[in-house]
């Protein structure tokens, strides 16, 4: 593995500048105050949104989501019964629905989108940001893992999966009676935690925190 140098801010005057990632306009950050978000003057993109206690809440939400993910994969998700027969499905069954022949790649993709990538993203976030809670300097590889976490964001689709589940339930309504398992509620709650986490996370603020000290 290539050893990455620890994160540093640019030297001299450049440290005072930030370029809008959407339109490239330069802004001064020297006077960005605590607890005030700043937007790009031209395109309105949020540049910094520092909030007090953001790191604590971020780590708490990520940890909570991780625990719920463990529950969600170890208990039955849904069960259906009709005409005296019944079947149960866990999240893993949902994934392995596609195994066999052509469908194997799709099963892998589903596993990646709803479990593997979200878990990887949560772990990477906790690993990179967690030590900041205790006033420690960032751990080696913190930059790599936070970068990974931010690249994974569009590909973590737990919330989209839940909407898919809702649609599937409607499609099954006439066919059978449906029971909700523990994992269903765990997954639903997880989606809420992750959504709350994404809503409060400001990537650029965290990068500056990772470089300080």
């Amino acid at each position, binding site marked *: 593995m290539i050893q990455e140098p620890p*994160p540093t*801010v*640019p030297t001299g005057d*450049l440290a005072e*500048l*930030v*370029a*809008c*990632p*959407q*339109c*490239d*306009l*330069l802004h001064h950050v020297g006077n960005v105050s605590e607890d005030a978000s700043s*937007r790009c*003057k*031209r*395109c*309105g993109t949020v540049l910094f949104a520092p909030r007090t206690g953001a790191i604590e809440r971020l780590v708490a939400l990520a940890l909570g989501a991780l625990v719920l993910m463990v529950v969600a994969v170890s208990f039955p998700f849904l*069960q*259906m019964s009709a*005409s005296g*027969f*019944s*079947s149960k*499905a866990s999240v893993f*069954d*949902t*994934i*392995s*629905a*596609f195994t066999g022949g052509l*469908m194997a*790649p*799709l099963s892998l*993709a*589903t596993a990646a989108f*709803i479990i593997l990538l979200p878990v990887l993203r949560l772990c990477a976030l906790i690993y990179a940001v967690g030590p900041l809670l205790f006033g420690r300097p960032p751990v080696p590889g913190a*930059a*790599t893992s*936070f*970068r990974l976490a931010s690249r994974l964001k569009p590909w973590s*689709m737990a919330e*989209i*999966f839940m*909407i*898919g589940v*809702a*649609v*599937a339930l*409607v*499609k*099954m309504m*006439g*066919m*059978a009676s449906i029971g909700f398992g523990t994992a269903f509620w765990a997954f639903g709650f997880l989606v809420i935690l992750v959504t709350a986490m994404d809503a409060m996370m400001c*990537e*650029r603020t965290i990068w500056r925190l*990772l*470089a300080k000290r």
Partner: protein
Amino acid sequence: MAVARKEVTGLTARAAGLVGCLHCGSVWPKDTSRCGLCGSALTSRRNASLQHVWAWWWAGAIFYIPANLYPMLRTSLFGQESSSTILGGVLELVKHGSWFVAFVVFFASIMIPVGKFIAIAYLATVIRRGGAIDSHSLHKLHEVVEFIGRWSMIDVFVVAVLSALVHLAFVVNIDPGVAAICFALSVVFTMLSALSFDPRIIYDVAEVRE
């Protein structure tokens, strides 16, 4: 959104002989190749941006065709086989009176993908042509496309859940059809298409005009 639509006469990183990081926003001397703060590769503009956008766009469009023609789901009810395409699934929901859910699926599987193909093609064409553009609206359009694209995956997950759960001996069985793969690929490719678009070039075109 209370964003003032006035043109701001500011300096861009490129005009100042600097390069800004797309991820952490920090600013570096022009020829820096890697961001010292977050480690991302730095480019003043992603030069091949539009070529990548088009390449992924075509890949997505090509897979969207079989995704609509072939069955998403194969259902066997008391030994009777039937299959439904994306549109067929929507019509079935309508027939059962589930208007709202039919709309959700229609929106996610047909309106978003088609709208996305049109929007990205429009963005890329207008940027290439240059001339008078409304950069704020184009930027908003790109933001919407980037945000909404992943929601198309809903139908793939519907197929996954149904195929996993609905296996009741001889009563009813549901299996995925080949369109599920094509559709998932199409969504991934169009997401990559939107992600490879460098929004900074929208404002470059506007600056050239001024």
